[in-house]
Structure formats: structure tokens, C-alpha cells
């Protein structure tokens, strides 16, 4: 579950821990209706975990977005 996102990084809420330095791939789905697209816009991202900490009952993992690609429509 995404908590926050910027052009440089993402903050995930997870039920398990991720090790800092771990390379991850993830996809962001942006609502097409807000962006003026017929379908939701999918962006494939590659990044790495920079920190992960337990907050209440879940882990908050911050990851960079090192590379991304808009999915073909």
C-alpha cells in the first residue's frame, strides 16, 4: 500500500520488513479519469529500499525511484 509518492521516491506500508539496499520493482497505478486517460495509467518503476521501520503494527519502507517507464496503453 502506497502512503506517499514523489518523483524521487515512494513510501510503502507493508506487513513485512524490507532490508535497506534491496532492489525492488513496483508499479504505480494512477487513475486515468484524473489524468484524462481512457484507462488507468500504469508506471513500472525500479528502485531500492533506503530505510524500513516498524510503525505501530506495520512496516514503513521508503524506496527510491531510480528508473521508470510508462506502460504501453
Amino acid at each position: 500500500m502506497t502512503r506517499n509518492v514523489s518523483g524521487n521516491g515512494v513510501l510503502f506500508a507493508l506487513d513485512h520488513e524490507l532490508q535497506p539496499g534491496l532492489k525492488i520493482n513496483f508499479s504505480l497505478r494512477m487513475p486515468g479519469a484524473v489524468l484524462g486517460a481512457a484507462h488507468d495509467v500504469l508506471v513500472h518503476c525500479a528502485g531500492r529500499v533506503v530505510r524500513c521501520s516498524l510503525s505501530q503494527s506495520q512496516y514503513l519502507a521508503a524506496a527510491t525511484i531510480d528508473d521508470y517507464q510508462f506502460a504501453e496503453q
Partner: protein
Amino acid sequence: MALGKQSVMDILDDTPDGEAIEGSAKPGTIRIILADSQAIYRVGIRKVFALEDDLRVVAQADSFENLRTAVGRYPTDVVLLEGSLLAGTTNAIPELLRTAPEVKLIVQAVGADESQTVELYRRGVRGIIPRTISPDLLVRCVRRIAAGETWIDNQSVNWVIEAYRAQAAALVSPRSQPRLSPKEMSIITCITQGKRNKEIAFQLGTTEQVIKNYLRKIYDKLGVSDRLELALYCLHNKIVQADLDEELVAQKVIHE
């Protein structure tokens, strides 16, 4: 000033031996550099100026790089610059004016474009003229601009005033969104749909370079640096469509 060998060779000097002519210029002579990628324009304009006692072409350049070198090399009053030499550059005009603050720039534009016109004047250009300008008017324009005036047509005056009004309104109301033209909005919509520059250019009936130029302006206006930030900005500010709630969901996290 140290000049690269290639740069020196690429400057198309007006004088056969490549020396500056300021020593032979009469007081009050307007020293001009012609910067144009097309030799036919340089030759033609030089002939027009040659008929005038007070106008003197001191150098010619066929690229922006060569113009920069020429401006640093020859004392110049006016630069007559082909607009397309600025394509793909971001800070070309401020850079040029840093090199030679007294130089007055006239840009020859192919077509009138609101955002480009406002941006050129904002960055320090003194006049924008069409490529089709008559010789008489060109001479008058150069003299006026050399005298410290600004050369601006009625349409451009309206665009510039409108831009200042919008800027003033934004200062009074800092939360208001940047003003985007219909074309910029079209490009943003395409970007947020994941289209490539080439596809956008095809869809809007223009070239990839024009799209890149527009994108740079859009990034500057919105304070973003790439397509993803632009999409996120649109999502947060609902600048494409404002009637649905913001939503952003990461689908999956895959361990490598």
C-alpha cells in the same frame, strides 16, 4: 579570451582577414552580428545593411555556439538571431547576455507563438521580427533597438501584458495554479497517458523538437523535472480533470 581552434574556424568573419573592424568604424556606427543557419539570409541581410552608412556587420555565425564565440570576440551593439538557433537550448539568451551585457538581441521568428514570444522578451530579447520583414523595416528596427528601444508588435504587446497580469495574479494568490495554454494542456494529457514525444508530435501535427520545447516550458511552469513528476503533479493538483478524488495505489512489490 581563449578560443578553441574549431570555434575560431567556424566563425564566419565579415572581414577577409578575420580581424575586428571596430578600429575603422565611425563613431555612432551600429555594429551587428548576423547569426543565421542559412547563408542566403546572412548574405541578403548583409547586403541590405551594406547600403546604410551607420550599420556594419562585424561577424556572422551559423550556429549558437559560434555566435557565443563571436560575441566574446567582437564588440557588438546588435545581434540579429535566427529563432531556430535557440531550439534545444534553455539558458542561451541569459548566457549570451552574461557574456556581453550591452548587446541587444533581435530574434527572427518563423511564426508567432504566445508562450515563446513572452519567454523571449522575459529573457531579455529587445525585439522579435518575422523572417519575412521588409528591408526598410529591418533597418528601422535595428536602429531603434540600438538606440535602446524595444521592438514589439501589437499582438505581442497583448501577450506580454497578459503574462504580467497572470504573474501578478499568481503573486497575489500563491495557491493558484500556473497558467497553461490549451496546447500545453494537450501535451500534458498525452504525457500522463504515457505517450512518447514522437507519438505526441504525430498526434498534434508537429515535430518532436517542438514537443520537447513545450515540455521544458511546462516543467519550468510547474516546477517538475520529468514525466513522472509531471503525472504526479497532475494527480495531486487535478489539472487535467478536477472532479474525481485523488487515488494512487501501488499494485505490487516484487522482490528481486
